[in-house]
């Protein structure tokens, strides 16, 4: 105790700071940094959990590049991204734009749009699966049948399954994006709109010359945030195609599901780790490209 008392105020601060940070530093080292390094290390090894770990160099990556399933999965992952991000961006902007101009029962409408965000993907996957069922059961096909349209095989078709799995993911994320957009819209100073009004500028010009340019930070945030979400899609796919995860015929399988199956069904840890490294690189590159493009414009 004497030792502590003799320290200067500045030295005492250092002691306190490291006392506060001791546990967190340990946590981040052991639970974040060590596993990151470990994942990269395992990606250069061949290991099925039971046998010996053998060093194989780049074999896992070479195998991945030659694996047709990987390329199918890679394509699917980008289809999720390229469909999901623009669709949810446009829908949530349109809703937020109009909701922002609505005063009557504003809070109630906002609640309706936000509620799906508070749900769990697994629970909602069951609800949507039920909607997609064929006629005596599913809501959508019953609705189609009642107006005389032939049935649609939502989840059992290689072409329809991916959009069908994506729909609930977009649906659940809309509320969050709408709220963020509305906050962005409220932050635009009213004086800009008043000036435009005095100049007699039409609403379309106001939208493109004032609203959207000033919303740029919000748009960048939403695009990057939702892209990361769609590139990492897993819960919805796994739970809507349970009989044959990622099916039919791998048509809905995203990268994370391939990782899960390689690691925890086939226990091919090295190969799975190589896939996670690829996922990391994809996320990094996509985010950087988006930040680059959207910041410049």
């Amino acid at each position, binding site marked *: 105790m004497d030792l502590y008392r003799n320290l200067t105020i500045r030295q005492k*601060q*250092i002691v*306190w*700071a490291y006392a*506060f*940070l001791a546990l*967190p*530093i340990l946590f*981040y080292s052991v*639970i*974040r940094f060590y*596993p*990151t390094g470990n*994942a990269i290390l*395992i990606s250069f090894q061949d290991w099925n959990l039971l046998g010996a770990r053998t060093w194989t160099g780049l074999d896992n990556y070479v195998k991945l590049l030659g694996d047709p399933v990987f390329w199918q999965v890679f394509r699917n992952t980008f289809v999720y991204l390229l469909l999901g991000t623009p669709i949810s961006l446009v829908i949530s902007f349109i*809703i937020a734009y*109009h909701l922002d*101009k*609505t*005063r009557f029962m504003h*809070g109630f409408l906002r*609640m*309706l*749009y936000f*509620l*799906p965000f*508070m*749900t*769990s*993907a*697994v*629970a*909602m996957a*069951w*609800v*949507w699966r*039920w909607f997609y*069922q064929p006629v005596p*059961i599913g*809501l959508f096909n019953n609705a189609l049948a009642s107006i005389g349209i032939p049935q649609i095989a939502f989840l059992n078709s290689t072409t329809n399954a991916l959009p069908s799995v994506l729909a609930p993911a977009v*649906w659940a994320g809309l*509320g*969050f994006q709408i709220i*963020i957009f509305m*906050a962005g819209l409220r*932050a635009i100073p*009213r004086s800009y709109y008043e000036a435009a009004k005095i100049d007699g500028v039409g609403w379309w010009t106001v939208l493109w010359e004032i609203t959207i340019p000033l919303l740029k930070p919000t748009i960048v945030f939403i695009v990057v945030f939702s892209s990361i979400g769609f590139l990492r899609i897993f*819960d919805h796919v796994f739970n809507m195609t*349970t009989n044959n995860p990622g099916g039919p015929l791998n048509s809905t399988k995203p990268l*994370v599901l391939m990782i899960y199956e390689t*690691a*925890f069904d086939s226990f091919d*840890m090295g190969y*799975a780790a190589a896939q*996670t*490294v690829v*996922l*990391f690189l994809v*996320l*990094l590159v996509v985010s950087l490209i988006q930040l680059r493009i959207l910041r410049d414009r």
Partner: protein
Amino acid sequence: MAVVEEIRPSSDALLKTRQPKRPANMGNYIRWLLLFFGGIAMVTPLAYMISTSLKWPHEVYNLQLIPNEPTIENYTYVLEDGRFYWWFLNSLIIATITTVCNVIFDSLVGYTLCKFRFPGRYIIFIAILSTLMIPTEMLVIPWYLMSQQFGWLDTYWGIMFPGLMTAFGTFLMKQFFETVPDDFIEAARIDGLNELQIWWTVAMPLVKPALAALAIFVFLGNWTAFIWPLIVTNSVDMYTLPVGLSSFGDEADVQWELIMTGAAISTLPTLVVFLIFQRFIIRGVVMAGLKG
């Protein structure tokens, strides 16, 4: 903070001052109606989930939203079965403990990085921030190996340990502690409080809204977390609600009214919490979204 604070006053001001009584505008009616029907469409899956969970088996396929003879039989059946009871309890315990840990540690780290001057401060901040870029999926394999080695598989600790602190929360709290004036902390120091007391009794009460926003996010995230609990649990009693719900598998073997009841049990708590604290949660989402 500045952005967030602007939102409320300006919206209230708009309500009062802008165009007291404009003649009814057709366009506004149409806008409202479209938004209303859009909103109804958004909650349709939730409405059907709840409606089906209140139906007898023979009514499930008639697709009416209001059951003819509503029943809570499904709920008693599902809860008496015991599995959902455990899954609910597991999810609740795990989400609660994780939330408390995040609120304490993220704010402690955020506070330290914000208010203390010490060598290594910048490096530690950057190091924590950089973990935001590492996807969880990259870490699950090493976490699994670690859990296997230390016997954490199939335990609460095993499910919880990866999420006890988050870089997102730390960053969020650091941003908010910037709004706490240094004078307050200096004054407390002169009053003879030690640093731990200053953090807890002076700084923490000043960032309560941010703590609440963090708590909501962490709780919701852990309540709905799926991939890691799926990997780390293997006995039915240790499942969380999402893992349990997922375990029913094939839709051919499923009784829809029971699965909808299960889905409702895992969804209703967060929906009810949202309905009670709506304004507050939405403000929290905006704060976390814009700051984090």
